[in-house]
């Protein structure tokens, strides 16, 4: 895997999570004040950075084959779940992630909560809301940075890609002071799911002692193949949903009238 591919994979994955974290920090900042929200977000980023810094060197000390087997398996399972979620959303089975609705709900809840200071934090509720949001969304970022980075012995590059995504999304979010609802979150999730699944399968098999036909070139078949499978599944779900809606309309009294 080239450094460019590693950067792109981690950057895209982190963009998805950063959009969700930014929505929560914006709600905390607008409803409870920016100082507490910033403290909470920065504290969560510090916790995640310490985790990556502590676990990173430990992971790179593991023999390559064992590391690839374990990390590849985790990535494969994690990536297929992302892909599954993106396919179900694209197929209309589950609702698309609505950043506007989430933002409004968080804002309404945050505005109702009581305010009380703790230490140097002027509003504890705003702090914990931002802290939890960034920590929960950021854990997936840390997981991706650690798995991709340690496997390629390039944790600093993976961390830089994550940092670039967080800065870009964060800056855009705070510039418009609104959730980034226009980011094609599900398309990004689909793309990242494909990459995590493909690289996970590739590394897990290599770690198990498998030799892929064509070596690294196998990824050029594996990744488009997984993407095609996902697209076909989403299309099949949409077609099935459309057929069901037509049947429902035909069997309802208004449908019979038509």
């Amino acid at each position: 895997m080239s450094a460019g591919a590693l950067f792109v994979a981690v950057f895209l994955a982190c963009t998805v999570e950063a959009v969700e974290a930014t929505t929560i920090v914006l709600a905390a900042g607008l409803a409870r004040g920016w100082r507490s929200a910033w403290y909470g977000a920065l504290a969560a980023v510090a916790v995640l950075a310490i985790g990556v810094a502590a676990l990173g060197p430990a992971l790179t000390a593991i023999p390559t084959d064992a590391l690839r087997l374990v990390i590849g398996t985790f990535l494969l399972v994690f990536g297929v779940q992302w892909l599954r979620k993106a396919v179900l959303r694209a197929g209309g089975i589950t609702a698309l992630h609505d950043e506007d609705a989430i933002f409004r709900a968080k804002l309404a809840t945050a505005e109702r909560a009581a305010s009380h200071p703790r230490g140097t934090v002027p509003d504890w509720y705003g702090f914990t809301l931002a802290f939890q949001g960034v920590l929960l969304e950021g854990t997936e970022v840390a997981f991706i940075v650690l798995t991709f980075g340690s496997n390629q012995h390039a944790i600093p590059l993976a961390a830089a890609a994550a940092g670039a995504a967080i800065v870009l999304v964060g800056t855009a979010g705070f510039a418009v002071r609104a959730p980034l609802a226009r980011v094609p979150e599900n398309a990004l999730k689909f793309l990242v799911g494909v990459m995590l699944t493909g690289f996970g399968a590739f590394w897990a098999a290599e770690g198990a002692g498998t030799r892929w036909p064509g070596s690294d070139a196998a990824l050029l078949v594996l990744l488009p193949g997984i993407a095609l499978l996902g697209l076909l599944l989403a299309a099949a779900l949409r077609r099935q949903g459309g057929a069901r809606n037509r049947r429902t309309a035909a069997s309802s009294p208004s449908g019979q009238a038509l």
Partner: protein
Amino acid sequence: MYRRLRAGTAFVCDLVVGDDWRLALGLAAAVVVTVAISRTTFPSWWVLPLAILALLPLSVWLVARRRA
């Protein structure tokens, strides 16, 4: 302490395994099969792509059927 440990374990499980534990279990089993076959002289590269090809549509279909 015990409650926090349990909550932490549940969070990590949820993070990696996600919504469908059977899909995760099936993929983990496919990795075990890959390890076993790679110890022989037979090629084993096809096991994981085949597992993805079989398990992902099955998992998606089960959700679609439940929602129908």
